């Protein structure tokens, strides 16, 4: 049997993480479907499993899941204009999410450490792709509504606004999962992390502009002029 107190270890200042709320008898998450269910129903359990090192496969599985979900939502985006957008929008949706996550990951690591979390790089990466998977799952749930509206209107502004609302809701729950994860890794509810969330949203919004158009028709895969996302939105409102 394990002894209740681990002896003090030289060079160690960290405290054990908070106690788990879950029964130790809970079966471990065994596959992608269970992981998706746990993300929605029992995120804390999933995070504990990651922390215990039981789910090293989760990083790849959640990354794959979030990519597929972004691809599916991209199809809905592409259905608004059709043509080349049938394939361009799904590809751009995946690039948007993955590239945003990649360039924001170093700052997430630093900000998580600043908030007191003692997380390994792999654990933090799993939390980040878990967040993207939650965003993807919620966007998938919104997909039928978005598709219905996209078939009923020709206004890019109206559709853009609708997708922004769906995205805002999805990211709200995504960030909530990330915050929960960092809390379980000893992090505080820290304004520094909120700052990172704000930066991440800005990067995603700028990415949608850099990869435009996600909704309208286009002559080329990428635009030939560079714009800030606010400038881009303003031009659409003026039109």
């Amino acid at each position: 049997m394990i002894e209740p107190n681990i002896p003090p270890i030289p060079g160690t200042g960290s405290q054990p993480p908070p106690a788990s709320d879950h029964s130790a008898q809970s079966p471990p998450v065994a596959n992608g479907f269970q992981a998706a269910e746990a993300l929605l129903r029992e995120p804390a359990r999933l995070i504990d499993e990651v922390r215990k090192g039981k789910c090293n496969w989760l990083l790849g599985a959640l990354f794959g899941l979030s990519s597929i979900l972004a691809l599916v939502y991209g199809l809905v985006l592409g259905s608004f204009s059709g043509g080349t957008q049938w394939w361009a929008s799904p590809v751009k949706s995946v690039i948007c999410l993955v590239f945003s996550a990649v360039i924001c990951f170093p700052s997430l690591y630093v900000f998580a450490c600043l908030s007191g979390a003692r997380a390994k790089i792999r654990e933090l990466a799993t939390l980040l792709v878990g967040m993207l998977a939650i965003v993807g799952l919620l966007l998938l749930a919104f997909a039928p509504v978005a598709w219905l509206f996209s078939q009923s209107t020709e206004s890019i502004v109206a559709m853009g606004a609708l997708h922004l609302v769906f995205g805002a809701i999805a990211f709200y729950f995504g960030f909530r999962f990330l915050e929960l994860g960092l809390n379980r890794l000893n992090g505080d509810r820290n304004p520094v992390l909120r700052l990172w969330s704000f930066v991440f949203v800005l990067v995603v919004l700028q990415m949608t502009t850099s990869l435009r158009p996600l909704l309208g028709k286009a002559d080329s895969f990428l635009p030939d002029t560079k714009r800030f996302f606010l400038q881009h939105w303003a031009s659409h409102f003026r039109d």
Partner: protein
Amino acid sequence: MFLENGWGHLENMSAVCFEIESFDAATQPSRTTGAAEGSELSCLAKSFGSRILTLNDVRAVEVTGSSFMETVARESALLAGDWESLHERPDGLTARHLARTLWISALGAGLFGASMGWWRSPWMAAINAVKFPLIILATAFGNALLNGLLAALLGARLKFRESLMLVLLSFEVAAMILASMAPINLFLVWNLPPMSDSQETQLVYSIMKLIQVVVIAAAGLIACWRLLSCLAWRLKNRGAALKVFWAWIAGNLLLGTQLTWICRPFVGSPHLPVSFFRSNAFQSNFFESAWESFGQVFFP
């Protein structure tokens, strides 16, 4: 690697980062992480060797001798403000620690500087990659004597070397934050219209400067916050820590702003050529210029 056959490997290594996780059905999971080297290694091995040794008790003992992992563990402790962990390390304030602090600060500041200069030209990026670390290090070492003396005069029992290390640690925190923002900064630069003589370029130049100032200021404020908490922990007296903190900040601000003024340009005004220093680098100073601008605005 995972140690499954005792601690022989551990005692043969020069430095390790370890993570030990233990849990079973009856107790809460607990995890202990840290880093050890030198004489601490045998102590670590004995403390576990005498009582655990079987993987029934300890599910995973992850040990790595990689200096990269060791650096990551140390940097995360520094960012988290886990001063106990840093202080107890045998290399806490040694030349090796100093060297690591210097190269991490230089690398972090250099990366951000390069991303900032990239919009102007690759040459400006290369120049910034050198200038940014130089400013940080010159500020720390230029004020080292002053900071040490001020600490002593204000009643803080800090050795000269300790006061230098504390200032360097705060610069290291700022440098790591800046380095982590470098990819986002590069993405920003990639999205900016290219440099031209147009009116738009002037606007973009102003936006670019503003964003850089905000990011650098945020990194500086967080680093100051860490410096204050480290001083309070070290001196065990918040009042004395506050006095020393403000004295150091005032000195570093004075020297740092002037060094930054001399080393301009960083983004580079669109109508001026790229250069390491301006031809008038040693004319005037930051405060004089700020005062002149103030006068032009309010007393034209």
